[in-house]
């Protein structure tokens, strides 16, 4: 290394030193410590005692863990495609020469600004069984269906029904999907107009143009958004926690891995077990992200690379 190179290296390291400190303290150390704690009986109040793989054995036989894992995966697998379809749909609708485009964009974006605490309390009220607005909007439709088919469909008591609580959460999440709409809309506006004009001259219809121009051109943005949504969905905690009044829902239907980590760590002071859970969550995130990257790489179309 020449003198100049060394000076540059020192300069660079000085500038990135805050991040290096943060990385060591809040990323690297916690990951390594988690591995150690997960092999221990640890309550924070006393020193960790080595247990071996006991926490992982317990975890394997813990039906609550499997429930949390299942809920987390179902939530991600259902909510992410739904919100992706919805936000692309909204962005495509908005990307037309329509009066009040800016106002609509603001309307769709606003819910994503609502703090988790306000969002969850509002939706607890929206999803209230007898008095909630959601059911009062649904009931007229159910009445029509019941009258026509002679069925006896009833509006669900969303958050008190183990079969519907997760759907209530998904609905809440769909309302807050606005950030993605803004990102997709910006992506759509980057698509060169000539592509559409040329395709139109070739006699394609709107759906074909969407499928063969819009989607490929938008694919890098979709890929990025889906990846971020996966990381977001798998760590979901605050909204279901508040929706259930600080619990995990009827029949633990709103228990997620993050919730179970929280419960073990801060309700039961079982930090060793919580660390084992945290590592499972980490592996799940890495795994699902890698799967996405693997399939994404093949499908994503980069126009200028």
């Amino acid at each position, binding site marked *: 290394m020449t003198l100049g190179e060394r000076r*540059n290296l020192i*300069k660079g*390291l000085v*500038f990135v030193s*805050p*991040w*290096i400190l*943060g*990385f060591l*303290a*809040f*990323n690297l*150390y*916690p*990951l390594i*410590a*988690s591995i150690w*704690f997960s092999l221990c009986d640890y309550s*924070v109040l006393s020193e960790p005692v080595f247990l071996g793989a006991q926490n992982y054995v317990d975890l394997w036989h813990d039906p609550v863990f499997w429930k949390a894992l299942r809920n987390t995966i179902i939530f991600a697998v259902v909510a992410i495609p739904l919100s992706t379809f919805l936000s692309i749909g*909204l962005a495509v*609708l908005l990307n*037309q*020469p*329509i009066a009040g485009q800016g106002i*609509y964009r603001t309307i769709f974006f*606003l*819910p994503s*600004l609502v*703090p*988790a*605490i*306000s969002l969850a*309390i509002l939706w607890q009220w929206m999803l209230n069984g007898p*008095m909630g*607005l959601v059911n*009062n909007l649904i009931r007229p439709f159910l009445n029509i269906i019941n009258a026509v088919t002679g069925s006896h469909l009833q509006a669900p008591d969303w958050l008190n029904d183990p079969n519907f609580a997760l759907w209530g959460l998904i609905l809440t999440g769909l*309302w807050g999907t606005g950030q993605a709409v*803004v*990102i997709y809309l910006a*992506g759509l506006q*980057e698509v060169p*107009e000539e592509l*559409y*004009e040329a395709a139109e001259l070739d006699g394609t219809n709107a759906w074909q143009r969407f499928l063969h121009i819009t989607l490929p051109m938008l694919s890098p*943005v979709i890929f990025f*958004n889906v990846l971020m949504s996966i*990381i977001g969905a798998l*760590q979901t*905690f*605050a909204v279901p926690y*508040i929706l259930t*009044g600080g619990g995990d829902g009827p029949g633990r239907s709103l228990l997620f891995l993050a919730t179970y980590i*929280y419960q073990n*760590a*801060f309700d039961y002071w079982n*930090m060793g077990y919580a*660390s084992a859970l*945290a590592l499972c969550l*980490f592996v799940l*995130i890495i795994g699902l992200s890698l799967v996405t990257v693997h399939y994404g790489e093949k499908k994503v179309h980069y126009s200028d690379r």
Partner: protein
Amino acid sequence: MNPTRSSVPWFSRVALILLGVLFLLPFFWMVSTSLKPLNETMKLPPQWLPSSPQWHNYPDAMQAMGPFWLYARNSLLLAFLNVVGTVFSSAFVAYGFSRLDWRGRDGCFFVLLATMMIPFPVVMVPIYGLFRALGWIGTFQPLWVPAFLAGAFNVFLLRQFFLSIPRDLSEAARIDGCSEFRIFWQIILPLAKPALLTVALFQFMATWNDFLGPLIFLARENQYTLALGLQALQGTISGTPWHHLMAASTLVLLPVLVLFFLTQRTFIRGIATTGLK
């Protein structure tokens, strides 16, 4: 717009109006409920508007939360410290990742990007232990000191921006004998104001909205943020005074909305670029 695409089909318009109304309804319901007397919140079928708006629900809800202004002060203080810490530390680090060439830079940057895959719940147990060892549990420090150590996402955003500033600018200053810190402080930072404002806004929202952090690190009620104070209101009172809960939820949301409308342009542009860069 070219003429062949300027005709918007009628079903697009109808769909937009319908969806727009659906997206606004929860807001309407929140405010409408917050202005009803308690008995009107429970009417079946529901009453769309209060017969006469009960503005006193707002002061009543604040009273019910206990020291509302203390919570508001705590939230604001934390938001302020986090914004200052994140903006300066992230800009400083982003400078090192964009305007300087040094061995190992790209490798380090890759590690930084990878850390975005580690969500807080994964690492919160050892971090809690760390803060406990420092004697910081039950103080504000865990909620603002880390902000001074740069956030990966913000570094990424600012780096992209710094890269778009011509290199010659720094070279010229270096030839004039300017120190690296002065180039950062006096040349790059002023040019990066829009990006810094975006980061500041995002961080304000993130801190104001944070729930899990205050939940695990704070202990005493007089340190609560608005989010924790509101959750306590939800939990302690018997019956369900939805009018008060909706009033308090509106109050917590209000500063965020005001800030958004004041800075809408910067905000929307910031969000839009995060997905495209």
